[in-house]
């Protein structure tokens, strides 16, 4: 039998690295296994890294981590075919320490982050696929990899193997996800001169901007698009529920091409050159889709446990916090010499009591609500655009008349009632 570890973490993404880092820091003998050539090589995200949760793991990381730009402006665009209603917040307080969040390119950032875990004493093995958990007497005692003599044992296995966690699924922790529980995001990294980016997005050096795109960016399919500024690249992508793509018979890259050519987006990216094309699934089923996340000798963290807040496009921060709490739990279990489900349940309790669980509960119905009632994206966003156009077009009619016209555009009394009901419903879902 090969060497036994205190813990094996499967998957070197934000969740897995956070967990391995804190475990090693706490003195545990931890093995981190990654299937990619290096951490980050297979990881995809639009690119927002949240400062607070990262600092819970590595204080003042922003002084040395490979970050792109601190975000000082967040814009939200409600898009129609040839118009967009945009609101934004720009605050220079976000441009200085301690910052709010940053754009990052994962291939660079994850490598740096994993190095930090290795410096703490974690052992990182790349290019190795974990095929299954080794289960003995109902307890997870290790993992089997695809390499010769590939069994390795530990007191606890932490599954951070991402959205399609086949490992958790094979333990019977969750079923195969349905198309309305996962979103498919495709994105491109577009190379563009640093100065041009700063001019186009009204930024100074070392300032970044994020734009979230709603409505026509996804052709009305439930989902969002995004356009983020990096140092000398832009990240442009769209993510929609898989069920939406199926229903509308649209291929994901067609949707990305559509956004790239959209008149509201095209001017931002003009002259840029595609550098990378990436695609990934995002777990958006929310709280209701979360399966079992703790068992005897095993804990599930990050995307593998469906931890994504689709409404606020948060995921990596939830992943990091879950990794941190899992590490804390394993260290306590190690002290007690007890790795049973009962002991490890500390993780689930802490997770659900904290902001992660609270937010997951708060938005538990959001994805399903917007999927069930497509009119929000299909009808109401165009309606808002028409109203704005009506109100701000100076054509000699009085503002009273304009308001009347807008009200008329909302449809019959019955339709207005439906609209009011939908607004109330949406409010209830996210309140």
């Amino acid at each position: 039998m090969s060497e036994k570890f205190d813990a094996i973490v499967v998957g070197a993404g934000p969740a897995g690295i956070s967990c391995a880092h804190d475990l090693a820091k706490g003195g545990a003998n931890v093995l981190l296994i990654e299937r990619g050539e290096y951490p980050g090589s297979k990881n995809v995200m639009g690119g927002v890294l949240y400062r607070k949760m990262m600092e819970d793991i590595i204080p003042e990381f922003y002084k040395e981590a490979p970050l792109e730009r601190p975000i000082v402006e967040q814009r939200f665009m409600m898009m129609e075919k040839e118009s967009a209603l945009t609101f934004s917040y720009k605050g220079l307080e976000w441009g200085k320490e301690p910052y709010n969040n940053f754009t990052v390119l994962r291939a660079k950032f994850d490598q740096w982050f994993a190095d930090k875990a290795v410096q703490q004493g974690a052992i990182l093995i790349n290019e190795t696929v974990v095929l299954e958990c080794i289960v003995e007497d109902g307890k997870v005692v290790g993992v089997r990899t695809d390499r010769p003599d590939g069994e390795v044992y530990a007191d606890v296995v932490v599954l951070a193997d991402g959205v399609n966690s086949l490992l958790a699924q094979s333990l019977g922790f969750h079923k195969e996800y349905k198309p309305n529980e996962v979103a498919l995001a495709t994105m491109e990294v577009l190379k563009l001169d640093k100065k041009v980016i700063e001019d186009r997005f009204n930024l100074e050096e070392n300032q970044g901007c994020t734009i979230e795109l709603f409505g026509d960016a996804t052709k009305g399919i439930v989902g969002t698009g995004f356009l983020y500024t990096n140092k000398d690249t832009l990240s442009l992508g769209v993510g929609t529920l898989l069920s939406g793509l199926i229903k509308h018979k649209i291929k994901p890259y067609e949707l990305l091409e559509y956004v790239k050519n959209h008149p509201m987006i095209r001017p931002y990216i003009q002259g840029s050159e595609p550098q990378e094309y990436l695609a990934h699934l995002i777990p958006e089923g929310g709280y209701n889709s979360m399966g079992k996340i703790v068992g005897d000798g095993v804990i599930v963290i990050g995307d593998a446990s469906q931890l994504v807040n689709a409404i606020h496009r948060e995921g990596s921060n939830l992943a990091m916090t879950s990794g941190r709490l899992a590490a804390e739990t394993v260290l306590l279990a190690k002290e007690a010499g007890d790795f049973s489900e009962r002991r490890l349940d500390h993780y689930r309790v802490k997770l659900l009591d904290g902001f992660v669980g609270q937010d997951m509960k708060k938005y538990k119905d959001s994805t399903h609500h917007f999927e069930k009632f497509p009119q929000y994206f299909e009808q109401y966003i165009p309606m808002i655009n028409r109203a704005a156009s009506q109100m701000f077009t100076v054509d000699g009619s009085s503002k009273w008349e304009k308001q009347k016209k807008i009200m008329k555009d909302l449809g019959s009394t019955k339709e207005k009632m439906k609209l009011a009901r939908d607004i109330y419903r949406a409010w209830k879902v996210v309140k």
Partner: protein
Amino acid sequence: MLHIVACIKQVPDTKIIKMNPKTNTMDRRTAPAILNPYDAHAVEEAVRIRNRYGGTVSVVTMGPPPAVKAIKKCIEIGADEGYLITDRRFAGADTLATSYAVTKAIEKISKTNPVDLIICGKMSIDGDTGQVGPGIARRLDIPPLTSVNKVVEVNQEQGYAIVHRKFEDGHEVVQSTLPCLLSVEKTINEVPYSSFPNMLKAAKYEPHIWSVDDLENVDIKQLGLKGSPTIVSKVWTPSKPEGGTLLEGDAKEQVEQLLSIILEKKELFTVKEES
């Protein structure tokens, strides 16, 4: 017990690398650094010989500190020890200066565990010269055997090795005294998917790192840029040849077409008599 040293190099992945069109030099930032593919076969062969006869496989490389990664790759393949010589004074070395520095490292390794066999890859994919191996052999005054595609026997007791050297039209069976140096072809073996215990060992392994001062009897003038008489006058990306005709059809038809073209342009093939 046999002591086999494999000489390796960390190179930019030339499948990916871009050339800087202005300076005509390789833009090394555009490509990840990898273990020179020929060297992986050298290490694998060393590991196979060790597994057959017992002994130790050491790998040695000269390079910047990140070359530790290439050494770890060799540990994954099955090497026992790794030595990195790294120093600013090594920088800018051509094949002459490189073989000098690596020889000094091998001499030092030999002091604690005498070396019986040195194995190099045929050449590096970024330099394509294949000169460092023979250069080391010359400096150590041992026989160099190039283009090796099979190791038949290594007999430490009686002090000989028998190998096959590959030629275009066959191979040569050569017996050499030990110690000797082999530079090996890619066809010599296949590097298998490394075992999990080897991966673990590599992840934890910390190679021996030496600077110039750790080596003995070094003539500083023969190191790095100073010790490199090679002058690269120009590097450029060859332009893709244009034109040409692609012959189609089955083999017989293609041969017929080719023949008629050759006959048509036979003046190209006549030898001009010198007057």
